[in-house]
């Protein structure tokens, strides 16, 4: 029960009391925050493919990468619509994952931001008809745009809790950390097998989990910290604080005079001439239609894998009113871009996103096995009702979320797209299935049976999603879902065959 850590060249020995206290912190953080962190990590594994899922969720958006019309011709009909609020409009250009031109705006009537998609070849406007990707994204950040926007701060608190769990975990296992890299005794009794799995996955996943916890907390608390620092550091100038961290988002002040914009393609061409090597990905309009309205052309350049460059041009005459490059930006903005790029896997392409997703799922297993080890130890000492409740909650949140996500994918394909309540149907299917799983797990006494049933059903549903897509195109997302489904079925077999004392 003693720990010797080598700090600054000398051995530091932790007392038994300190070791026990740190162990308790690790265990209680895991128990209280673990299930929510599981939700965050599981949905995060899907969120790294947010753009791909955004295209997959509506078969109308499966457009082959062909010839693209001039940007102005595609975007102007949407920008000039009366219902599009002009203060800020974001236009996402097609790339490897996105095949349509996507326009995001706040309606003039107010409310949350809306999205429409424009076919790059024909210019046909396709409304947003599914929210599969955004449900998973919002659950990842524990927020709802309208009802609970503060949820992002709650997610930040859980990010800090994850970091605390990681630090205490490292302190507990410091001496054995290398030995535990190679030790998994799957054939032993469940207590040992789960403990080994927890340690192996935690030790291997440590770099990823540390990165995810740290960057996640920074992303969540960024806006809050900005408000706190605006007073003492920026003398109350919120805009200056925002510029320091996020760059120039709002453009020039509104003049109130209405003036038409010059050709958008000319503006984009001027931006790429200004910053050679810039490949535009996002156009962010500020005060479109106003005499001082501007467009910021964002994109990446060679040599800055995580940093973004930007050229802001005035819409009425194409005058350059600002540029941002990783070299010229302040350290705060560069760090923010790296934090965001690392967290959302905006580098290295498809391979990096697969690694992120797998590491996120491994983090889920780390959390769930940790909970199980804690429960088995406590239950073997003294059976309690609270242990049984936590055990059933672990199954319901862990396995239930798998099933709810699988049902969400099925709901997306089974509810006809033209039905006006398609989006609502997806939400009801996801949250309804999750709630039903919770209820079912609370009443089924055997955790092993509940795990097996949930994993089998969700595995089968995930694996069969490509069958629903046979009439469309089978793409990377379908293949990934098939593989994930088969992996869940394999996990179900493993859980079923473990000769378990699933006493909780």
């Amino acid at each position, binding site marked *: 029960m003693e720990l010797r850590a080598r700090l600054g060249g000398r051995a530091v020995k932790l007392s038994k009391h300190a070791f026990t206290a740190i162990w308790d912190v690790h265990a209680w953080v895991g128990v209280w925050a673990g299930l929510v962190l599981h939700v965050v990590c599981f949905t995060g594994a899907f969120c790294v493919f947010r753009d791909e899922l955004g295209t997959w969720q509506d078969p109308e958006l499966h457009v082959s990468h062909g010839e693209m019309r001039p940007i102005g011709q595609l975007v102007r009909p949407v920008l000039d619509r009366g219902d599009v609020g002009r203060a800020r409009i974001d236009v996402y250009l097609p790339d490897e994952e996105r095949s349509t031109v996507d326009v995001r705006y706040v309606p003039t009537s107010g409310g949350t931001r809306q999205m429409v998609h424009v076919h790059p070849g024909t210019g046909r406007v396709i409304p947003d008809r599914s929210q599969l990707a955004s449900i998973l994204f919002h659950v990842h950040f524990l927020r709802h745009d309208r009802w609970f926007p503060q949820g992002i701060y709650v997610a930040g608190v859980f990010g800090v809790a994850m970091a605390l769990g990681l630090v205490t975990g490292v302190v507990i296992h410091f001496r054995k950390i290398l030995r535990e*890299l190679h030790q998994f005794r799957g054939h032993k009794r469940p207590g040992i097998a789960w403990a080994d799995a927890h340690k192996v*996955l935690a030790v291997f996943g440590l770099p990823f989990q540390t990165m995810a916890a740290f960057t996640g907390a920074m992303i969540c608390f960024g806006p809050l910290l900005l408000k706190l620092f605006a007073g003492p550091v920026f003398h109350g100038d919120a805009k200056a604080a925002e510029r320091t961290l996020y760059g120039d988002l709002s453009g020039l002040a509104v003049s109130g005079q209405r003036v038409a914009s010059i050709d958008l393609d000319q503006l984009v061409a001027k931006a790429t001439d200004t910053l050679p090597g810039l490949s535009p990905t996002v156009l962010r309009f500020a005060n479109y239609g106003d005499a001082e309205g501007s467009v910021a052309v964002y994109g990446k350049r060679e040599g800055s894998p995580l940093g973004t460059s930007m050229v802001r041009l005035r819409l009425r005459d194409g005058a350059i009113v600002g540029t941002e490059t990783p070299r010229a930006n302040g350290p705060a903005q560069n760090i923010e871009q790296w934090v965001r790029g690392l967290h959302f896997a905006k580098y*290295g392409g498809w*391979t*990096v996103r697969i*690694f992120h997703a797998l*590491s996120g799922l491994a983090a889920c297993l780390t959390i769930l096995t940790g909970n199980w080890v804690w429960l088995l130890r406590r239950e073997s000492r003294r059976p309690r009702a609270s242990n049984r409740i936590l055990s059933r909650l672990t199954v319901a949140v862990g396995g239930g979320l798998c099933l709810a996500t699988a049902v969400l994918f099925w709901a997306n394909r089974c509810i006809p797209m033209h039905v006006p309540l398609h989006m609502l149907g997806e939400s009801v299917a996801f949250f309804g299935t999750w709630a039903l799983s919770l209820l079912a797990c609370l009443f089924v006494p055997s955790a092993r049976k509940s795990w097996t049933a949930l994993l089998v059903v969700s595995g089968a549903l995930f694996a069969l999603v490509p069958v629903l897509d046979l009439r469309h195109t089978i793409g990377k997302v379908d293949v990934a879902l098939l593989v994930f489904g088969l992996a869940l079925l394999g996990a179900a077999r493993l859980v079923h065959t473990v000769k378990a004392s699933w006493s909780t």
Partner: protein
Amino acid sequence: MVDLMAFSWSLLAFALFHAAAKRYPRPGAAYLRPMAILLTVASLGIWIRAEGAIIGSILLVFSWIVSGSAFVVSAAVWPRVAWAIALALPWLAALGFLLRGAHAP
């Protein structure tokens, strides 16, 4: 295909490290570690050549996270399958590379 090749070398490197671990004493273990180091360096070289120094290094860390955790857990439960994949994947990736070219998906 380049990514798969780099990952497969990384996986094989970890498998050799695992086999050379003190926990599993076996003859020839002394030779496994240098081979594993060589494969790791080669894998890092491929990542860096494909993605640059920073992203290449991050990718190597990720490939170790994924290949290491997957191999340790699966080698304990399904040892033959785990070793077959670790040994065959580099050859399959090389074959794919030769047949379809470096830029094939």
